[in-house]
């Protein structure tokens, strides 16, 4: 036993460059730790945070959303404008190159979109490109004829198949990344380690599930110049080692996902900063209008009177989330706290009681709440229990909770297994419509049987409206209708939280609702 101890000491003495605090002797690199996973580096093969984040750093898009802002700004393009609601013209910067020296021209841009749609990877995000897709043959989607026109090397013209004012924002998402047509195959994905882009960083090493190493790309042209030469991204399978790592300084930044307890504890660590920016993660309770309980508007409205969002935020999430009163999160153009206006900021049991009485509904009402225990994190069960006790505490409901693992949950909630069930949402791009169309048009992606022709008409109108003031008004109208019909009850918005060492700069600026972690803005002192 003594000999093992001596061995331990001697290893500790000579191993100072390997582990321990302050990993980086050089100062021109930093380490990010995250529990996100990477599905694919190829933009045609992914629709998740972990993948998209690397893609934003490795590739250019025509436009990008700068930190803290909501409107697109040029990146690979020097300008992109709507000629009319069905046509966008972009002019590329001259002389762009990929990190391997290949020239970036309009044909690369067209190629990128074309292959993304054709490959149609089940894990991919080509569904966002609906406005330029020809899906007449569902087995073989392809770029609609004439959808992308490239009259010369630096001009790209998009012809959309319907008026779509959100498409400009789609151009800023990682699905629109520009890839090198000489390197990427047109019909399948490129192995992760081989990706080539024109963004501020290039991929120097990728060990799947372990780490990715990015190095500054000297050939990058644009406004997003990298501040640090080398970035290590380490992937953690569990939050516990992630917390230990940031707590002891073995990594410089921890982003997604630490528990509320961890965050509160890290606040007390003087070597790190817990930084919070505005987020756009969304939790909401969906009514299944196909059930006896769900189809009665008075019941839905009564529950909206009773829900205590502050209690949920405090008890289930230790105050790390913000209650939200609209289907559209704050910070988006056209956002309006419609639920607060209609139902008040705090619970009102008396009004709920009155409402039910007027509608002639007998209380207590038996209601089944559904949730899924792991997909959205372990605190989901706490929120469900919290809502249950609020509903039961009012005396008007008799609520029970039921859960199912994610795979079954998705089928069950469409089959009327629950009256009211919880779901989460991250936006694909920052536009109010991304919180509207997927939810309230004809049952939404979750099939809750809500369908309101007035809503559908307004959605069509806002998608085609280029005057932003007018569009905001329509969006406000939609939120009011939603607050009245209550097809769902919004619960909370997540914040975009990261923990960074005291010597790291630039992190706070990048924490915004886009959830794009902009490596190029971050640097380490010393």
């Amino acid at each position, binding site marked *: 036993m003594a000999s093992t101890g001596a061995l331990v000491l001697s290893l500790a003495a000579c191993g100072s460059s390997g582990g321990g605090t302050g990993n980086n002797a050089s100062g021109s690199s930093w380490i990010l730790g995250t529990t996100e996973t990477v599905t694919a580096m190829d933009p045609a093969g992914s629709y998740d945070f972990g993948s998209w984040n690397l893609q934003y750093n490795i590739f250019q898009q025509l436009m990008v959303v700068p930190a803290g802002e909501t409107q697109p700004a040029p990146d690979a393009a020097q300008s992109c404008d709507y000629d009319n609601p069905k046509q966008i013209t972009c002019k590329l910067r001259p002389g762009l190159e990929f990190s391997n020296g290949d020239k970036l021209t309009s044909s690369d841009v067209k190629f990128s979109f074309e292959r993304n749609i054709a490959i149609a990877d089940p894990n991919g995000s080509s569904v966002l490109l609906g406005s330029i897709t020809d899906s007449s043959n569902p087995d073989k989607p392809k770029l609609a004829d004439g959808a992308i026109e490239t009259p010369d090397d630096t001009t790209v013209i998009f012809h959309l198949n319907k008026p779509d004012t959100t498409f400009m924002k789609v151009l800023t998402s990682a699905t629109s990344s520009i890839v090198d047509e000489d390197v990427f195959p047109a019909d399948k994905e490129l192995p992760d380690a081989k990706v080539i882009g024109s963004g501020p960083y290039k991929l120097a090493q990728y060990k799947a599930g372990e780490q990715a190493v990015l190095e500054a790309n000297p050939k990058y042209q644009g406004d997003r110049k990298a501040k640090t030469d080398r970035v290590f991204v380490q992937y953690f399978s569990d*939050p*516990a080692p992630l*917390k*230990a790592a940031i*707590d002891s300084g073995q990594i410089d930044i921890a982003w997604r996902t630490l*528990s509320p*307890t*961890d965050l*509160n*504890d890290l606040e007390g660590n003087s070597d790190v900063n817990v930084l919070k920016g505005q987020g756009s993660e969304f939790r909401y309770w969906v009514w299944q209008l196909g059930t006896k309980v769900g189809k009665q508007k008075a019941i839905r409205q009564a529950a909206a009177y009773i829900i205590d969002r502050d209690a949920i935020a405090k*008890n289930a999430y230790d105050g790390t989330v913000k209650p939200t009163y609209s289907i559209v999160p704050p910070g988006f153009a056209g956002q309006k706290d419609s639920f607060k206006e209609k139902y008040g900021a705090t619970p009102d049991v008396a009004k709920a009681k009155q409402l039910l009485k007027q509608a002639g509904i007998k209380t207590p009402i038996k209601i089944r709440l559904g949730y899924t*225990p*792991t997909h959205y994190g*372990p605190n989901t*069960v*706490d929120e469900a*229990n919290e809502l249950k*006790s609020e509903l039961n505490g009012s005396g008007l409901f008799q609520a029970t*909770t*039921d*859960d*199912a*693992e994610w*795979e*079954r949950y998705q089928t069950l909630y469409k089959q009327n297994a629950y009256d009211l069930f919880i779901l989460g949402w991250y936006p694909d791009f920052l536009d109010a419509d991304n919180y509207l169309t997927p939810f309230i048009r004809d049952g939404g992606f979750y099939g809750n049987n809500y369908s309101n022709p007035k809503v559908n008409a307004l959605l069509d109108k806002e998608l085609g409206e280029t005057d932003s003031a007018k569009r905001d008004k329509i969006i406000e109208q939609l939120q009011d209708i939603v607050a009245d019909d209550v097809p769902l009850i919004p619960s909370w918005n997540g914040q975009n939280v990261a923990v960074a060492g005291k010597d790291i700069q630039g992190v706070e600026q990048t924490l915004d609702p886009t959830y794009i972690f902009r490596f190029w803005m971050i640097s380490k002192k010393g």
Partner: protein
Amino acid sequence: MLRVLLSPFRNTSGLARWILVAGLVITGIFVVCAIFAPWIAPYGFAQTGEHGRFPKMAPPSATHWLGTNDQFFDILSRIIWGARTEITVVLLSVIIAVVVGMPLGLFSGFIGGWVDRLLVFVMDALYAFPSLLLAIVFAFLLRGPLGGGTVAAALSLTAIYIPQYFRVVRSTTVSAREATYVEAARAIGAKNRTVMGRYLFGNVIQSVPVIGTLNAADAISTLAALGFIGLGIQPTDASEWGYDLSRALDDAQSGIWWTTLFPGLAIVLLVTGLTLVGEGLNETVNPALRKRRIRKVRLPSRASSALVEERS
């Protein structure tokens, strides 16, 4: 039968007896908790308040002897109710495994021939499989139709243990089958069923409790591991120590020790208790280890004793 069951106890002496007793006492405490939970536990397992909410993650105090966790539950109550969950799951899985594995082993060992070979083969393949992985896959499979409940967890553990009972019982049967008294029984004209039931069964049943307790210990560890990975039992359905532990592990790094320590200790204690019982029994049931004052120098057949140790 009673004499057979009590003989291990009476045969022990010295340290072996103490170990057996210690194991029985520890296990007994948990069994008592399991049976009398509604009367012993101060609160319900999903109770979050009495007159007003319980505090969240409060350290041990007069009203909450072991403190509360981050779901507002009283930890002492969770531990006591948890004993019920653990014991239920373990009992279910061991019983089903024995009920399936033992007859199969008896039958297979006795019949021999290609049926025997086939069964041995399938069971060997199953036995070689890492138990946790099998449990994980089963937990996924059964979670859907049965929900995240005790039954799903129990069944997922069952599949792992059937091969073990099968193996031991079969090898004992194989060696016993050649014994003279069996031959004699056959000579009298006893039917196969009688031979298996009356003669072999008594022989074979001696090794089952040893394996049973060791398996029970294993089952609890596996249940906790399932809870850690997120495939266990939901907190509102029942109290399960592994789940509480997985929620608490994060907190431990923030200086909140009571949410982690007590469920962890509970697991360690119960598993230890069961293992001690198994070990104690092994000391007496296994003739090679038994210390008797009058020693008959009779080496046991290598197969049965080796297999009994293999499991430990």
